[in-house]
């Protein structure tokens, strides 16, 4: 590419970062005068330290969320985009989420069902697959490191690249998936046009993507369990099934619980797989987050999409709060 243009681009980013640095310095100077010279408070140091993040979070997170809440109460769309055309319509958008189709055909409940199915099937298979592989790998074995490095590959490859490839390989005639099926005498499957098979295709691709993460996390958990437990169990004559049931499984929980919470959140929010495997074609392959993207940027219903987003967020928040509270997974972080 043209070196001049590249230079300009670097300058643009550098200037933006410099502006932020100047802003931070300015903020700190004001705080210093205010807190140290005028108020003489003991909290000056922590307040000055935390100030850039607070300002940053307010501008980058709190402001967009607040703005989105305002949007959810308006009728903003491509038609009503200029400030003069935007009207407050109260909670109509929220009512619409539950009563009318979210996209062209499918409604909220179908999407919610699809998302639940998507999340539960994926996380279950991730955990089972990851557990099986981790238990197999967790022993003295030749080529252990090689296996581990190869099996980790699907996690290491950029997800979007993997999905571009999967999408192409699901092609009815030329894709490798059907070619392999043909080798074992199975009739080719319409992965991209049949709603049910498309959903299955999404799950297959995502299981492939997600197992390595669980395997690595569980392997770490297995390594943290002391051998002494197993030695003691062996002396008492425990079978290997018993030592799994009474030693491995319970001692794995501190690792498994947060990993499952993470897995659920990631899978629930995984916009990539459905978006790239389905290419925004069949609504039956949408999950909540891809439907949200469509409502916002294909149908340009900004106000409605904002309300829809809050509903999705609320579902996830309720799950997480409940699960974290039940498992006490967060206890350490606040101490």
């Amino acid at each position, binding site marked *: 590419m043209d070196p001049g243009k590249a230079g300009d681009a670097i300058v643009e*980013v550098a200037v933006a970062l410099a502006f932020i640095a100047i802003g931070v310095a300015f903020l700190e100077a004001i705080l210093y005068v205010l807190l140290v010279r005028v108020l003489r408070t003991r909290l000056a140091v922590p307040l000055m330290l935390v100030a850039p993040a607070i300002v940053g979070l307010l501008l980058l997170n709190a402001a967009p969320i607040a703005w989105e809440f305002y949007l959810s109460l308006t009728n903003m769309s491509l038609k009503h985009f200029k400030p003069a055309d935007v009207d407050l319509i109260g909670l109509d958008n929220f009512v619409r989420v539950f009563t009318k189709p979210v996209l062209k055909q499918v409604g909220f409940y179908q999407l919610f069902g699809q998302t639940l199915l998507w999340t539960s099937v994926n996380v279950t298979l991730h955990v089972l697959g990851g557990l099986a592989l981790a238990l197999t790998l967790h022993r003295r074995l030749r080529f252990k490191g090689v296996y581990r490095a190869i099996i980790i590959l699907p996690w290491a490859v950029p997800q979007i690249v993997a999905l571009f490839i999967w999408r192409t390989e699901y092609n009815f005639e030329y894709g490798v998936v059907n070619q392999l099926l043909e080798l074992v005498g199975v009739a080719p499957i319409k992965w991209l046009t049949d709603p049910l098979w498309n959903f299955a295709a999404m799950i297959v691709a995502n299981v492939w993507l997600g197992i390595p993460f669980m395997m690595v996390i569980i392997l770490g958990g297995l390594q943290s369990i002391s051998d002494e437990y197993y030695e003691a169990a062996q002396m008492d004559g425990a079978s290997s099934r018993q030592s799994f049931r009474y030693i491995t499984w319970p001692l794995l929980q501190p690792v498994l619980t947060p990993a499952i919470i993470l897995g659920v959140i990631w899978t629930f929010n995984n916009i990539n797989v459905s978006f790239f495997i389905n290419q925004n074609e069949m609504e039956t392959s949408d999950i909540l987050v891809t439907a949200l993207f469509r409502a916002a940027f294909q149908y340009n219903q900004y106000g409605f999409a904002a309300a829809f987003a809050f509903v999705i967020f609320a579902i996830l928040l309720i799950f997480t709060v409940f699960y974290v509270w039940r498992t006490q997974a967060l206890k*350490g972080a606040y101490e």
Partner: protein
Amino acid sequence: MSGATTLPSSVAGPPAAARAGHAAGGRRQKPLKIAAFHAILIFASVVAAFPIIRVLGVALRPNDRLLDPNFSLIPPDATLDAFVHVLTETDFTRWIFNSLLVASGTALLGLIIAATSAYAFSRFRFRGRGVGLTFLLTTQLLPAAMLLVPLYIIAVTIGRETPIELMGTYTGLVFGYSVTTVPFSVWILKGYYDTVPIELEEAARIDGCSQLEAFWRVVLPLSTPALAIVFLFNFLTAWSEYFLARVLVSQANDLWTWPLGLQTFQQEFTTQWADLCAASILVSVPIVALFLYSSRWLISGVTLGAVKG
């Protein structure tokens, strides 16, 4: 995110070779069993690697044989044409440059903002600390698509009302990505600072350092691995992001990052199939190498906090 901080610290550490498996602990294993384990692992390795190997095979094929149902790793008439084509005849290098620039800017910004504030969250008890931590965690629950709408409209509005242009600029992308990376960075670094013994700072203060000097001279240097993890995580988040880039810069071809660019290759089994495969390999190899090299530290990072997948 959620509370992975309760994980035993040994998860992060390198596996002790001495403890490589209880199953091998006392009794000798039957050869049949060992063979079964190898069979399972070989099967898993084939499944994991096959799509990737196949991509390599397609990228090396001459253009007229792209559609052959042929599974050989390196075709007999292998050629690097597709790689040459991608590097010289398309905008690929430009996309890579754009992605590098945006990802580095994002990673740097996240690090600068987070490094000091995470220290405050770790060491001081001030009013609003709990609220702040909860807010940081909650932001990790936000679906990526959720903030696209307000970010898009804010970017348009700012562009209309002020001279600052966020639509179709690198700056807009860097700020947009920082929405996810800043809270995440604070959370990870706070978790790391928590593990740095406070006695070290106390010793420095007895020697005459102020608290800020102690942070600067003791805590920060000790935290280099965590700072590197955070930089890498933020970099990877921005590196392979598609949706915000599509919303903010899809109109400006010059600013396309590689996910936007590669999508134009994806027109199903035309000659571009080889381009897509070659470009995929070029994009993935450095990332995979980096990932495998740093996976141990990355994993400890995942278990301390979280990224969006």
